């Protein structure tokens, strides 16, 4: 199975969202920002990947 880097970040963001549920009250905004930064890295990499692919075509 081919795994691209953006998907790794999405997997990290999804798993971190699930696994952090017991600590979300203590973690507050700081924890929220850490988890979401995985997500946003995934989005940025995914969109830049699509732009590169469409330029090739």
């Amino acid at each position, binding site marked *: *199975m*081919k*795994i*691209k880097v953006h*998907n790794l970040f*999405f*997997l990290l*963001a*999804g*798993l971190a*969202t*699930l696994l952090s*549920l017991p600590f*979300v*009250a203590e973690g*507050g*905004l700081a924890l*929220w920002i850490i988890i*979401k930064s995985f*997500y*946003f890295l*995934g*989005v940025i990499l*995914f*969109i830049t990947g*699509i732009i590169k*692919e469409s330029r090739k075509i």
Partner: protein
Amino acid sequence: MIDLPTIARFLMQLGLAVVGATSLWSVFLHYRRRKTKEESEAKNLERLAGLLITPFLLGLTIFILSWIALKDFFYVIKSLAHEGIVVKATLDYIQNGLQATAWPVYLLGLLAVIVVYIFRYRKDLFNRYGIFLFSAGFLLVSLIDVFILYVGSFNKLQLFYFLHHWHSIFTLGTVITVDYLYFRTIGYINLKRTIYPLFPFLSAVIWAGLGLDFLSNLLIFKQAFVVNSQFLFIQTVIAIIILNGAMLSGRINWGLLATVQPDNPRPLSPKEERFFRLSGSASITSWVTVAFVDLFVFDLKYWQRVK
């Protein structure tokens, strides 16, 4: 508690998201059609743009009926963010919003009449001006989203309400559009060859839309961050959306593309087909669940919600 006005509010948001998304993707398809040099590709894009008329009209009907019901019959008292972060909208905000959106709603209705007429009787005009008509549709839906809850001035809360509604076009509405196009093109290999390579663009917009929702929550985080069972449940669904989305925009996209390769198409195995269907169902169910549960306050423990 589930009450009728909040169901109308949910339907209004759902309908508006579908109208916005189908307008946005119609603009995209018309634009691609203008740019393409291959005649068969242009024909396929024209057909795909035509297919989106049905969900556009269905979404508009649902939206307008719910909007009228809310404006003239019901009063709604709360709105929640899509991450389970609570911000109460006062009755004034909702009444202001319904009054302020009257003209854009009338114009959207008029636009729908024009679209239906030229689609039915003047295909040449539909192909020539479709891009402008659906751009106008998207702008009108965005304008409605700016004012759908109006606090009376343009502050952080107003910006939050706008983004909270607007992102549904890119998330819920686009997910419905993807599913609709997927099911409508089953059995049409030429249409599949045109639409499947475009799915990554739709995925990118869905990811960006969810990101927009996350960013909008920063605007109200301090005042609205409350960890309760509803918040935890919605976070769980958000995690499912992200994990499932990674599969959809990765392995599933590549699998679908392989089935329509002109040279050496690779059909899906029964196991893959089952897995793809399961993932597609999980996607639409999770998005509708998030949108639905956000609007209500349920007095349930976490495990009761998960069941």
